């Protein structure tokens, strides 16, 4: 993975740029000490690091606008950053870029239960949005597994999903409006608490644009009434194919579980060793969760187990109370921790049509074997969002091999009718694979949108689009 060389002219002007930023922001909002900018040298994709020119931490839309206007004037690239939890390197700086972090913008601006909306500054964490409305019986639906740490800004940038999107959708389905600051400092209010966009759906293209189009400083989010209860059932199978067929049958029967999680044998073994959740010895495990009143939960679970029985499962374990539910989720929720203890790992998130689950798992196993690496699979089966975890030993120099296997797996996802990333984003991690999914014209159309929002290509450049594809646009700055 290459990044463009930093501009010597900008590096030479660092002192003057930092002084101008300091002059417009309250004390302590500009960081340029190399010891401190190091904290911003990467996000959760730690394989790539580069300390930025400096870091600014504004507290309002006005301050963000002033910073952007200055950077635009100085022709300095800006790398927006939420909480820095991107797994795709969405916030990876270059040495000549100003990192604009929204972490200090955490205020709740308005809550309306009558309109079922909340308006927040986007540095607020995902979970704290739900906590804000919890007492009134509401929640914010998208729940990426990093929800304790990740910021709404990053959720919007990456169009984050979560375990429950089969029923509730992803960020784009729960975002109603946004205050967006363009690279030249222009503040744009896009939609709001009203149901309908009356012009072009700018919000739809801003959401998931990975900081390519603007910095979202405030957001109107849909809040939903919390279901009365939720409970999982765990179903064990002796083959991936059978588990996949069971998922299809459940969906075909008109049931819409709130989550369907799938774990394969390598993952089950690792989780069991780590968390001792009492998972059975099997090839594939499904955790299916349903929501509603006690009676509705019981009814749905009985329909699901009735279907599952026709596939001769090794075991069906229904949670009868919250302690049993927690135990069923324990292993799944500790999957990443379990892997981390065993080895270094790369987590992919390619998505495939759910009908292709079994063949794709088979091919992943063959690919892993050919590379001499282990791959554990845990994923959202209801929506086909895979999470193959490639285990490797960084100390043994296996990183390149692991990345090559990862690229092969993602190519496989595309080949089977899927995509490179279902929820983590492209960032720098999948940037150079974009041409496996898109033709030149498809990328050209996407880049035209960036041209419209950021004509000088100063905002989070060198991400999403392969460098050679975006070269002429970036050079024009």
């Amino acid at each position, binding site marked *: 993975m290459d990044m463009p060389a930093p501009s010597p002219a900008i590096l030479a002007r660092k002192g003057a740029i930092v002084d101008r930023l300091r002059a417009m922001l309250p004390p302590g909002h500009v960081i340029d000490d190399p010891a401190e900018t190091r904290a911003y040298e990467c996000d959760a994709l730690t394989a790539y690091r580069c300390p930025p020119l400096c870091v600014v931490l504004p507290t309002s839309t006005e301050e963000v606008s002033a910073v952007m206007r200055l950077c635009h004037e100085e022709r300095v690239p800006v790398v927006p950053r939420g909480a820095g939890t991107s797994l795709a390197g969405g916030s990876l700086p270059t040495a000549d870029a100003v990192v604009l972090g929204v972490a200090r913008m955490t205020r709740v601006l308005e809550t309306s239960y009558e309109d079922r909306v909340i308006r927040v500054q986007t540095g607020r964490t995902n979970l704290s949005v739900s906590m804000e409305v919890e007492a009134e019986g509401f929640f914010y639906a998208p729940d990426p597994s990093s929800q304790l740490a990740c910021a709404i800004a990053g959720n919007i940038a990456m169009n984050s999903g979560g375990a429950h999107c089969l029923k509730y959708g992803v960020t784009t389905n729960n975002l109603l409006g946004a205050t967006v600051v363009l690279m030249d400092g222009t503040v744009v209010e896009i939609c709001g608490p*009203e149901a309908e966009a009356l012009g072009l759906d700018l919000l739809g293209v801003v959401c998931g644009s990975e900081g390519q189009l603007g910095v979202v400083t405030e957001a109107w989010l849909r809040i939903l009434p919390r279901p009365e209860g939720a409970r999982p059932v765990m179903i064990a199978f002796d083959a991936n194919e059978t588990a996949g067929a069971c998922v299809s049958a459940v969906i075909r029967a008109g049931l819409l579980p709130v989550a369907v999680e799938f774990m394969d044998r390598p993952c089950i073994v690792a989780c069991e060793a780590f968390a001792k959740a009492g998972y059975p010895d099997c090839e594939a495990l499904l955790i299916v969760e349903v929501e509603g*009143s006690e009676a509705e939960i019981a009814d749905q679970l009985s329909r699901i187990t009735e279907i599952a029985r026709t596939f001769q499962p090794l075991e069906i374990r229904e949670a009868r109370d919250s302690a049993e539910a927690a135990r069923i989720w324990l292993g799944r929720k500790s999957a990443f921790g379990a892997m981390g203890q065993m080895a270094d790992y790369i987590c992919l998130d390619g998505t495939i049509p759910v009908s292709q689950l079994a063949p794709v798992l088979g091919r992943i196993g063959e690919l892993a074997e050919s590379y001499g690496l282990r791959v554990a699979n845990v994923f959202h089966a209801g929506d086909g969002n895979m999470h193959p975890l490639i285990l490797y030993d960084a100390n043994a120099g296996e990183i390149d091999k692991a990345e090559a296997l990862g690229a092969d797996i993602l190519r496989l996802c595309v080949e089977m009718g899927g995509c490179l990333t279902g929820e983590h984003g492209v960032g720098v991690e999948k940037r150079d694979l974009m041409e496996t999914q898109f033709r030149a014209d498809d990328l050209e159309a996407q880049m035209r949108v960036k041209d419209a929002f950021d004509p000088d290509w100063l905002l989070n450049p060198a991400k999403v689009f392969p460098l050679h594809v975006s070269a002429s646009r970036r050079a024009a700055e």
Partner: protein
Amino acid sequence: MLTPRNEAELSGMIRSAPGPLAVGGGFTRGGVREGEPLSVAAMSGVVLYEPDALTLVARAGTPVAEVERVLGEAGQRLAFEPMDLRALLGTTGEPTLGGVIATNASGPRRVQSGAARDFLLGMRFVDGTGMAVSNGGRVMKNVTGLDLARLLAGSHGTLGVITEVALKVLPAPEATMTLSFQGHDPGKAVACMAAALGSPFEVTGAAHDAEAGVTRLRLEGFAQAVAVRAERLARKLSAWGAAEVSEGPGDWAAIRDVADFAGRAGDVWRLSVRPSRMAEALALAGGAQRLDWGGGRAWVLVPEGADLRGRLGPFGARAVLARASAETRAAFGTFPPEEPAVAMLSQRLRARFDPRGLFNPGLMAARAA
């Protein structure tokens, strides 16, 4: 009328078009269009349907009726409930899937399931330079690259001609029940609907007929669950009156299609206002009123030529002209003026996707505020 049979033909027609094109499917939305008509109706047919994966891919010209029939045979449906406005608008023609997506046409279930754009998984379109573009895909979760599909949805054909769409579909429910309340004014109706939509009972429709004073709430799902929820919801809402409970599809198709205003003289406007301010907006609007989406959308019937945007004051920027004479449309514009920054971005996007200004000129690009 240009009727391309495939993307290649369409690209050629766009490249060689001497002037504006009136892009459409079945042209059921009415309104006066400038330019030579171009219909995608000949690009028709379901390309892929996997009920197990809740996925449907179809060409843009596929009739909505055909899509609904195919889904219905497998016990599934388009959950966003696209409306059929032919009776209201006095138009003929066959509503197409591409038209539904291009106008983001979404019925009462929007309050619970979302709009047409929320079910969009991917799209193919041809832009104003004749370039064919594929965006998104056919899988449920996809954040690969910029989301052009959603940008094109609701763009009324002004950024590109949609040729194919991939949609998430959902199971059709086993049972439907409706709770009706009498004697509501819009304020009371909105409060009642807000209480219902804030409950955990998954209300899938919340509408109000301001002339009859009736508020209706819909529940859908497995029969037993719906019956229990109806009873609990009626109890929860007892402060708003006694609910009459009925089984079956009820009046929801008529509510969706604003059928009450079909055949009644006057202009029809569509308001999009947050529910908590809707009663205030409607007091300014006057006329005959229907509320949908829990009070987030209103349909207002006013005498021909009335300046509803003027009357609405601060809410004027939230009003779209749905049915009117050519003169009234020319006087007021279909869409309200946009904020300058939004107008600037929209104009820049149009300039890049349709540099010659071929597609439905003047239909959407309202004058800046």
